[in-house]
């Protein structure tokens, strides 16, 4: 079954075409990667999916419903969660609170029940805290519940972003350069972690990544963008052999030299 279906997505900023006529399909339960050189339009494409940008042309169906014109919070509530290329945590909030913010669409208590401290609200809060604790353990930073996000080490902040995204109970998790700034051991551990998220929680994953080891180690399907256009798609083996991809990354002479 197709979870996400983007057709002919084009994003123009004035005269600049950041994303040009991209078709993109994500089957449910898969791990898909979006790669390309810097400035290829990968993050712009993410921003279209999550509702931050409206495409100039094209259509995006998530779970068979259009996301165009839907505000970001509503798309998130429908089950699309993301992390950010440059970490965007709520700095002055604790790890646990960060995670609980993303439970917002799933919590029910309103203003009146909060002020009156009704038992229902108190139980809901207690359960939410327990879920947050469990998620922090799942991403490997258990015990940091009461630490301020700002004070966590860099690697833990990246993990906290994933925990926060998972709190939305997403169907689709978008990871924007999740291993940026990680060393090879951390990246390898992250590769295994991505598989765990998919296998244990049944969450479909789309990742933008520059580290080819991580991409080849996680993704089942890869799509390559260059200058906003899709230049290739296929399995990791196919992409590795595709001379247009090699050209995009290494320049023309690289393929000529090989030939």
């Amino acid at each position, binding site marked *: 079954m197709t979870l996400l279906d983007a057709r002919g997505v084009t994003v123009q900023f004035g005269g600049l075409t950041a994303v040009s006529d991209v078709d993109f399909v994500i089957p449910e339960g898969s791990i898909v990667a979006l790669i390309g050189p810097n400035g290829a339009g990968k993050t712009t494409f993410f921003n279209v999916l*999550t509702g*931050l940008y409206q495409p100039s042309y094209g259509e995006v169906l998530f779970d068979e419903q259009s996301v165009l014109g839907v*505000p*970001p*919070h*509503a798309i*998130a*509530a429908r089950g699309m*969660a*993301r992390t*950010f290329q440059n970490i*965007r*945590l*709520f*700095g*002055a*909030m604790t790890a646990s*609170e960060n995670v*609980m*913010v*993303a439970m*917002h*669409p799933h*919590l029910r*208590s309103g*203003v009146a029940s*909060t*002020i009156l*401290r009704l038992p229902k*609200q108190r139980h809901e*809060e207690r359960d939410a805290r327990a879920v947050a604790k469990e998620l922090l353990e799942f991403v490997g930073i258990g015990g940091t519940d009461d630490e*301020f996000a*700002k*004070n966590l080490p860099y690697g833990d902040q990246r993990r906290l972003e994933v925990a*926060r*995204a998972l*709190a*939305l109970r997403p169907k689709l998790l978008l990871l924007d350069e999740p291993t940026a700034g990680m060393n090879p051991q951390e990246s390898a551990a992250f590769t295994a972690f991505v598989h765990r998220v998919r296998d244990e929680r049944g969450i479909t994953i789309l990742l933008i990544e520059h580290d080819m080891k991580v991409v080849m180690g996680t993704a089942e399907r890869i799509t390559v963008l260059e200058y906003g256009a899709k230049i290739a798609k296929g399995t990791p083996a196919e992409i590795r052999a595709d001379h247009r991809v090699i050209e995009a990354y290494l320049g023309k002479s690289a393929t000529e030299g090989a030939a």
Partner: protein
Amino acid sequence: MMVLVWAIGVLVFTFAVVRFVFRQDQNKAGLAAIGLTIAVILPHLGFTKDTGSFFPIFTVVLCAVYALFALGLNVVVGFAGLLDLGYVAFFLFGAYVGAWLMSIFAVNVSESWRDINIHFLDAAKPDFPGIHLSFWLVVIIAGVVAAIAGVIIGAPTLRLKSDYLALVTLGFGEILPEVFRNGDDLAGLNLTNGTKGIGPIDNVGMGFLDVIPGVPKTIRSSDFQTKYYVILVFCGLFVWVSLKLRDGRLGRAWMAIREDELAASLMGVPLMRTKLWSYAVGAVAGGVGGAFYATIVGTVNVDNFTFQFSIIILCAVILGGMGNVWGSILGGVVITWFNYTGLVYISEKSGFDLKQYEFAFFGLVLVVMMLFRPQGFIPAARTKQVRQADKEMLATQEVAV
């Protein structure tokens, strides 16, 4: 003597409740007990009865009213991080609701209202014409009207960010008093009495105490002492509301918006709704305080509602410590004391006319605060801890260099 007994009673009771019911540590319980005891005993201390003293009763009451305003604005500025320079709008709505529903004014609205005479559990004489509703009902209406005004003002303005929001709210704060100034002939109706203002406004009714046996006669009269306790209760209720909301689902969403609006929306927080809630909750304090203010001053005049008011309340929140309810109260009290009594009192005692340099003085205080204690008198717990961690990190970096 009675005062002393009361003081000890309140002290012990508060300490016990905070320590054992709310399970706070000794220091917190002690501070809470001392703070509440001072607040409760204040109007019974001798100096408050002397209008020339450093803290006359009228200033005491005003301090409490401004503390309520500061608590309200703290929800908007401190919790949700929305810079609102038009808080005066909510004060204005609250005060005019009080004036409309608790005075003779309704007979002036139009010719056909000439004989209007509505009374409902009020403190006015039954044959006094106009609309006279119970103060307690009016306070609720004022809160609701202010909240609705908050949503109406917020709906178009809250789409803007930081500086733009500040400018537009400032504009609203300037426009509304002008509308009320010229509201004495709107489509043939006199809705605001223009520059002449509305008065006299009825007192706080304490008639409900009659049904409780054994209540001493002294607290039945609507004097400033009694009114002070009324506003103290409102402040207490709003502290509760602030704290509970802050620690709940809505409070987390406010803080997330304050920290990173874009990330918050991508984590499922509806921005408009959440911001509107902060406006509405903050406006309730403005409306309730406004209606109360109308009854203690006795008249409502459009000249009371100035941009300066919005700035003073904002200063109170910043001085006290943004995001901290206790700081907001302290900030509101300190600023109001200087504004209404302190400057004059100091001028009289020292012979130096400080009152003349009022704005220079406030400016100086703000600059000094920003230099030496930018986080305010009582910073929010999280501000304190994050700042501490920042300092430690800087220290380790310096060592590393």
